């Protein structure tokens, strides 16, 4: 149990001393996962809206499928992306494997289903009279969507929080397509907090793992505070 205490002390030390390696890793985590969340949001929110308001055959099945994809293991996502971008894959020529870009792609794919699904849930929480009112006020399709979203902003931002949580905490895809590389230049490295935690764990360094976990949670806390602030505006 003392490892937990040590973990806290170590976390404090890392933060206070601004340990350069760790800060680089943390920064990479934030950048990659935020980018992935934003990208996924840009797809998931309109997609969720299209599905929710759409009337097409197979709509219900599609929703079920999306809900099913919540269970997509990160490793599988990693593998699929890996197959596409590895040198022999169809996008191999782009040389994306083991780059931060690849990690962004993988995390985007990973959180897409849950963000889409939660967007659908969020929209279904909006009072139908609100929707009718918007229509009756002469909203274009876009204005309609924008305003329904605005009404559902609390739940939609909750979906974003879930998406970000999943992105920044996942490790399977990150390690497969990123590779947990620690090179001397920032841009060539792909080590993020979760892959670093995995590594420390595999080396048996429990306190260090916990310290990195705490750091990750602090980052998540900061992001969530921002989200909450926006929610309550």
């Amino acid at each position, binding site marked *: 149990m003392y490892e937990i205490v040590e973990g806290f002390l170590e976390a404090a030390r890392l933060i206070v001393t601004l340990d350069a390696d760790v800060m680089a890793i943390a920064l990479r985590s934030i950048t990659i996962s935020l980018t992935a969340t934003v990208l996924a949001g840009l797809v998931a929110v309109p997609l969720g809206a299209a599905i929710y308001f759409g009337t097409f055959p197979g709509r219900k099945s599609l929703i079920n499928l999306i809900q099913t994809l919540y269970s997509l293991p990160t490793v599988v996502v990693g593998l699929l992306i890996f197959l596409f971008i590895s040198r022999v894959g169809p996008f191999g020529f782009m040389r994306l494997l083991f780059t931060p870009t690849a990690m962004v792609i993988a995390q985007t794919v990973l959180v897409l289903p849950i963000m889409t699904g939660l967007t659908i849930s969020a929209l279904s929480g909006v009072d139908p009279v*609100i929707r*009718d*009112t918007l*229509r*009756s*006020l*002469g909203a*274009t399709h876009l204005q309609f969507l924008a*305003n329904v979203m605005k009404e559902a902003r609390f739940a939609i931002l909750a979906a974003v929080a879930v998406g970000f949580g999943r992105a920044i905490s996942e490790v399977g895809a990150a390690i497969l397509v990123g590779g947990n590389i620690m090179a001397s230049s920032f841009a060539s490295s792909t080590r993020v907090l979760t892959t670093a935690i995995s590594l420390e764990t595999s080396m048996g360094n429990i306190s260090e793992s916990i310290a990195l976990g705490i750091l990750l949670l602090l980052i998540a806390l900061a992001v969530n505070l921002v989200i909450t602030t926006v929610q309550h505006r």
Partner: protein
Amino acid sequence: MIELEGVRKAFDSKEVLAGVTGRIERGEIFAVIGPSGAGKSTLLRLIDLLDTPTGGAIRVRGTDIHAETERSLSIRRMMGMVFQKPAVFNTTVAENIAVGLRFRRAREAAIREKVEEALEMVGLAGYEERRARTLSGGEMQRVALARAMVIEPAILLMDEPTANLDPVSVATIEDLVVRINRDLGTTILFSTHDMYQGQRLAHRIGVLMNGVFAQVGTPREVFTIPASRDVARFVGIENIVDGVVVGENGNAVVVAGGVRIRAAALPGPGERVSLCIRSEDIRIAPADAAMAAPGRNALPGTVASIVPRGPFSRVTVDCGFALSSVLAWKVVDDLGIREGSRVRVSFAPESVHAVQQE
């Protein structure tokens, strides 16, 4: 302006509208009245393109609005709607009212000005920055009205717009509606369960019953010569007496409850009719007073009840069937009648409107 042609709407297998036909003219104020569940809201929603009819056509300025899917936005932008249970957006009152203007890309200054003007008009000046979700029922309804009004639609649809308002606010809103119609020429279609409101505001009234317009006419027509027993009952004619027409002394007479009643216009002998007599046309005199004017129906009876009704009392007399009259409190006091008093009820044959029973 708006043509309804055999409009039908069924939910599941239940047909709510079963062929509504009618015309609302440009610049007209048209009231839809009808019992709860008659389909008033449904009809307004169909016109506002919020739902699709299962049959018939709705034409606005000659265009079948449900057929023209690509033009639905411009059609809808001609209309403003106030819902029966209005919902407000989770923001300030000012932003709520501005929404429609923003959709139309109005300038910020114009928006601010119009919003303030609208709030002033509905009696909510100074409410701009209030969170709309914390408003009282009536306040919300007025915000909804301001929101629909501010876009200055050619057609204003209102679903029971004053249902949650007190009489003073109702009067304000009614004045406003009349003013909008008069000053801007807005065509106004509203539903109401307050028949008197229909009468106060509307040029014409459509009585929606059993899925169709049972009657369409001016308020006076609907109130004085209802087209059916149901309409008569609905527009508040308290005295509806069923009987059979018999020919007598060259004049037709109706026999009801063993009593003979003369009426101005009657169908042929043998027909079953319902006689509608507005209570304010009925006079009550003490049994020992001088005889009523000749030619009037005069029936003896006993006072069954005296019930207050606003500044009046409703006096119901049992003359074989119940007949009631509405008298000012003073008059009741002057007549010195109370329950059980013997009185004489009289009314002119012209006050009797006969409708044939289906």
